[in-house]
């Protein structure tokens, strides 16, 4: 039922075309893997999907409706995890998580802060100021955010960075559980997270990659 698509997207940053005429589609319960070398535009595409950037051409649709025009309802539907972790080091782990759960505006009954902490094995750290967290613990706290309040679309930028094997497993099963509930996921990653079906290779759409090839041919 839910469908998330992008048509002919072109994105310019700093007067440089990052990618052009990019098209993608994610169906219900599907995961789209974004692949490409460093600097190819994966993070850029995710920010575009989230609505933080505007494409210069093309559009992004949720169930056939433009996400830019229905920004307010659309923002209800998504969770975004970027490179930066949005963690305030003076607040405790729990305070950090609770704050974002509250900001999501989701019905308190549907939130599950405790469960999310439990899931990512952060419960024993709940009352620690976030400053003391190790790199992987920070990342887990950031990931716990997407489980603490429900939203159908997850946009994840290299979520497995600095995670240990066990946590990668937790992340993987969180994604699978989300899929089973009919959720949609777009994830940029350099690693194998699961047997991949739906892969978007961004370098196919980047100008600077294409142009030399054509020149050579």
């Amino acid at each position, binding site marked *: 039922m839910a469908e998330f698509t992008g048509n002919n997207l072109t994105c310019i940053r700093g007067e440089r075309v990052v990618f052009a005429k990019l098209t993608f589609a994610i169906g219900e319960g599907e995961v789209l893997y974004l692949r490409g070398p460093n600097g190819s535009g994966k993070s850029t595409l995710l920010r575009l999907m989230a609505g933080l950037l505007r494409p210069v051409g093309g559009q992004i649709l949720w169930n056939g409706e433009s996400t830019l025009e229905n920004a307010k309802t659309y923002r209800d539907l998504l969770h975004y995890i970027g490179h930066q972790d949005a963690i305030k080091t003076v607040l405790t782990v729990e305070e950090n998580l609770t704050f974002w759960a509250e900001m999501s*505006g989701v019905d308190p009954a549907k939130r599950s802060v405790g469960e999310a902490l439990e899931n990512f094995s952060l419960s024993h750290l709940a009352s620690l100021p976030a400053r003391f967290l190790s790199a992987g613990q920070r990342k887990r706290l950031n990931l716990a955010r997407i489980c603490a309040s429900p939203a159908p679309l997850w946009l994840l930028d290299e979520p497995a960075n600095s995670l240990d094997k066990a946590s990668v497993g937790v992340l993987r099963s969180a994604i699978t559980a989300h899929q089973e509930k009919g959720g949609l996921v777009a994830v940029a990653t350099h690693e194998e997270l699961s047997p991949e079906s739906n892969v978007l290779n961004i370098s196919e759409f980047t100008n600077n990659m294409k142009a030399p090839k054509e020149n050579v041919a």
Partner: protein
Amino acid sequence: MNVFWKVFTSLIQREIRLAIRHGADSMMVVMFFVLVVVLFPLGVGPEPGILTRISAGVIWVAALLSAMLSMDRLFQTDFEDGSLDLLILTPQPLELLVLAKTIAHWLTTGLPLIIISPLLALLLNMETSGYGVLLAALALGTPTLSLIGTIGAALILGARRSGFLLSLLILPLFIPTLIFGVSAVDAALIDLPSKPQLLVLGGLLLASFALCPWASAAALRQAAE
């Protein structure tokens, strides 16, 4: 509406908590305010005549400087650690969130400043007839400063020479508040009515209340691009 309110208060709460735990901004502002006013007698010499004469001006200039000083980090940390992206992506209108942040900013910087100002007025030998008006003028003026400041704070995100820019952008906009604030107190000190000036200050507050959150929200969206 209920959801909005909840989100609104939880943002204010977080900001206040951050200010208290971290304190870099809020306490610094109050300290700074006190210091400007305390250092003056030290620098100028403690002649009561002169101090009395310049008391209203010193307090207002100190308030202005403190407000400006606290502005540049208002959105900066959120911008740097990615919180701003997430705030923009919450379903709530960004204007509301900006307003919440502004209120929190005022509660942690403007309010303490007002509370402490009678003490400082005493220190500067201000005549007691000015106290009431000083408080009223500060109560009307400091929220305006916070509101106007948010625009500057949002516009400079990611800019080069942001500190310089911030002062250039918001200081001119602070001047009316300063002028009417000082003249309200000065009028009271020479037993003239200071109601007209207070009314103007109120008008400035209303106008900036209506305008600033929108402008800042627009600027923040630009900054996240």
